[in-house]
């Protein structure tokens, strides 16, 4: 048996370590460890709940809006505040565009190099690349001259002997299977996607001043003023037009570049639609309300669970069934609490019990991660784009169903192909397609509100802390790019008493629980074949298919009557 260690796992957010045991050229067991802890929940204690979102937002700079969103929802839930319709629309627009942006960056910049050999592009015939490009899409940048210029750029880089971000790839690995012409296509779109992400996210700058870390949320609404007749209003007809242009640009890029590229690249790796399947249980909180947040039935993305890969039933989600487990995490709970607690009464007492650095291996038989292990009714759950697409597909949501069926037809696949490494990749692209299309509808609604004089953006009824009850508790749920995110807040005497986060990557990358049950990463890696253990490309393919965000995954909480409480965050 051989032990493979990947640390750092790069092209992710945060600090992730994977240890895997090999038997007969396949992964026989795997351990996922988060190796960084900040303690943001501890830092949040005793602060003004109205500004918790500004702090919590810094849990992650990649999915930069998601903790802000979950935080204001948690505090609004605690204080019983409903936000005006314009705030609902602004939040939907911000969240959907965050998803589209994140998914595009994930595919091209964090994941593509697991499938694309950049050196292959050097050998390509640009004229053939042009033919392929034109056969799969109407995207205009598809001439042979254009692809030649991209190839020259790669050649220039090689000639300079300073290879920058491409210095250290597994180039030449035998399981890179694309023809050189498709490699060149992908490299060209890697560079175009860099331009796209910069331009598209100006949407967030218009609404929030900057990205990352928008500065526009408020408990009770948004700070984005709206007025059809005021040139100084943050949103006026001119700025609405800019939002529309950017939304259209996103929809075009997703439909003409991102989704066709997924299908083209995936067609060379059909066995990866049968590998990396993981847990088979999927959960989503749902999001994108059409009315008040409490009216879960109005959500554009439905809440629900799929169990044992059975698409015939969508099971209800009861947030009371969620617990966090620390049996194998570097934390301890108070003696009587066992190793499992609901987040509303969660504790986080960090207690490192791993090897002293520098170390070669973790003690994977004991505690081995700064991530906790969330469970639903004692079961690990896969969250994320695949979970959302499956639940909405099974629930018969028209837009999701048509996107998924269209892709399955084009790729000549059955729905069960989605339970796989490439299934996750495809689901992410299809979600981007659905959300990119929804954006213009919300912008239209905003425009209509503005034109009929509905300008409210903030509900100030509970802004003054003097109006608050002595104690309050709230939950804020949100669907972040990487999956279901929850914030739980307890307020006492106008200050935060306890704050707890369960991020999507905590669900996915967490270690085993008290029963030894693996989380999603660990389960999905079992039986992965490795051609060359020195270049564990195949492990990266599956781990990256989840889009890890480790900074999100580690959090901190405190218990009533206990002075210290911590948590680790795994990311959205």
């Amino acid at each position, binding site marked *: 048996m051989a032990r493979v260690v990947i640390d750092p796992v790069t092209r992710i957010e945060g600090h992730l370590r994977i240890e895997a045991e090999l038997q007969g050229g396949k992964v026989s067991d795997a351990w996922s460890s988060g190796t*960084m802890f900040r*303690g943001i929940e501890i830092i949040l204690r005793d602060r003004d709940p109205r500004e918790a979102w*500004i702090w919590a937002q810094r849990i992650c700079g990649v999915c930069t809006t998601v903790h802000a969103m979950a935080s204001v929802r948690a505090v609004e839930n605690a204080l019983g505040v409903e936000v005006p319709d314009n705030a609902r629309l602004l939040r939907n627009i911000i969240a959907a565009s965050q998803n589209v942006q994140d998914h595009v960056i994930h595919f091209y910049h964090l994941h593509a190099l697991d499938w694309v050999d950049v050196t292959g592009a050097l050998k390509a015939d640009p004229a053939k690349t042009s033919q392929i490009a034109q056969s799969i899409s109407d995207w205009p940048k598809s001439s042979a001259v254009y692809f030649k210029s991209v190839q020259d750029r790669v050649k220039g880089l090689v000639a300079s002997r300073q290879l*920058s971000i491409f*210095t250290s790839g597994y180039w030449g690995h035998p399981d890179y299977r694309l023809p050189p012409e498709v490699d060149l296509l992908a490299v060209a779109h890697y560079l175009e996607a860099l*331009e796209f992400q910069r331009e598209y996210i100006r949407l967030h*700058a218009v609404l929030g001043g900057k990205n990352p870390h928008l500065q526009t949320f408020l408990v009770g609404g948004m700070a984005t*003023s709206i007025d059809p007749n005021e040139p100084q209003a943050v949103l006026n007809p001119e700025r609405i037009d800019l939002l529309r242009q950017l939304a259209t640009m996103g929809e075009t890029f997703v439909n003409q570049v991102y989704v066709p590229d997924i299908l083209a690249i995936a067609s060379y790796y059909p066995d990866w639609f049968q590998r990396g399947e993981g847990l088979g249980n999927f959960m989503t909180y749902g999001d994108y309300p059409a009315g008040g947040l409490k009216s879960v039935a109005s959500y554009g993305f439905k809440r629900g669970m799929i169990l044992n890969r059975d698409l015939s039933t969508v099971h209800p989600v009861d947030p009371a069934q969620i617990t966090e487990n620390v049996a194998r995490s570097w934390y301890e709970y108070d003696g009587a609490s066992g190793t499992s607690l609901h987040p509303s009464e969660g504790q986080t007492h960090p207690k490192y019990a791993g090897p002293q*650095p520098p170390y070669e291996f973790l003690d994977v038989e004991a505690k081995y991660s700064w991530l906790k292990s969330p469970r639903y009714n004692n079961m690990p759950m896969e969250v994320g784009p695949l979970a959302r697409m499956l639940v909405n597909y099974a629930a018969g949501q028209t837009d999701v169903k048509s996107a998924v069926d269209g892709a399955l037809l084009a790729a000549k696949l059955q729905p069960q192909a989605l339970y796989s490494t490439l299934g996750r990749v495809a689901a992410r692209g299809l979600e981007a397609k659905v959300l990119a299309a929804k954006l213009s509808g919300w912008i239209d609604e905003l425009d209509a509100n503005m034109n009929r004089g509905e300008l409210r953006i903030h509900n100030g009824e509970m802004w003054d802390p003097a109006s608050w009850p002595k104690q309050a508790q709230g939950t804020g749920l949100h669907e972040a790019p990487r999956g279901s995110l929850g914030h739980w807040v307890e307020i006492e005497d106008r200050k935060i008493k306890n704050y707890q986060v369960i991020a999507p990557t905590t669900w996915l990358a967490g270690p085993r629980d008290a029963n030894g049950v693996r989380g999603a990463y660990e389960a999905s890696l079992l039986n992965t074949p490795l051609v060359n253990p020195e270049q564990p490309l195949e492990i990266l393919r599956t781990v990256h298919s989840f889009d890890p965000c480790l900074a999100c995954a580690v959090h901190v909480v405190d218990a009533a009557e206990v002075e210290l409480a911590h948590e680790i965050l795994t990311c959205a």
Partner: protein
Amino acid sequence: MPTSKFLAEPEIEEATVYSTLRSRGVSRRRFLQFCSVMTATLALPDSYLTRVADALETKQRPVMVWLEFQDCAGNSESMLRTSAPDIAAFVLDLVSLNYHEVLMAGSGKFADKALQDSIRQYKGKYIVVVEGAIPHGDGGVYCTIGGRTALSIVQEVCKDAAAVIAVGACAWDGGLVAASPNPTGATGLQTVLPGTTVVNLGGCPHNPANTAAVLTHYITFGELPALDQYNRPLFAYGRLIHDQCERRAHYDAGEFVEEWGDDGSRKGFCLYKMGCKGPESTFNCPTVRWNNATSWPVKAGHGCIGCAAPRFWDTMSPFYRRLPSVPGFGVDVPIGEIGAVLLGAVAVGSAAHGISRAIRFRKEPSEHNTSADPEPSTPPDGKPIPNEKEN
């Protein structure tokens, strides 16, 4: 040892920024436009344009390694949004980014080899950028990479660097991670590198325009730009946000947002009463802006949180509490009591800064300053604030 196909290529003369740009068909005109943007950001006189262009044409592209510790990757993401140069030009043309965990191709051993090769082959010549805080608590177990502590990695990598740059609040002074009660014993980079000049590009996140400008300055002149007492470049951190703010005229006119979403908020009135920290924070946020100069937080309707100020998480929060008092007038003075001269000035749309100057001249003639320097500002609570004087 891992090998790379790329590294097996025959040795060829190493590329300059301009030769790399030219090889991908960038015109001379566009190249000069880029040089011009950089010269302007650096607040250099126009006459320096040719010097910047000459340097980028002739000097070798520097190798850069970018380390992340207790971070959120927000500074990496911010770098991805850079518009002059765009990120592809930044990583492929301006520098060679040989180690950056968010973008680099290789993981694990291959990533580590890229780092080790860079610091050995380019000893004394490479640039280190650090993002995130560095924890000291409990032997550094709160952040390890490849089984090593952040502290041991950063000290090894920075030892032979030509320049060390901290991007974002966390790398500068510990940022949010070091905010009270600092559960992991986090510090900024300078604390662990005594004797090294760390250039601090504070902000949450850093503004990539400033970071690109620092690099351009370094490539052009072979040295870092002028720094303030916190080792922050003066061109970016030398002036108060309040003095550059597009809403300043409303402050001087006593026109404030009183409640979120009120009439004043739609008219772009001053956010001081909603807790804006612009009067106590220095940064070029209002002029450089974000995301291809699209906007900045105050323009988007929310007060400044002072993210470029020292230890801002603890010193600037609570973020919605208004600052006690600020020099100049407006806040507690009814509009009617302010002279007609001022209102006239607002009406004709003079630049905000010019207006404030006019007011102060009327009030305290001795403070009037005809140079380009910003006016001295006294902090309301007597706390020392960053040096606003440009050199």
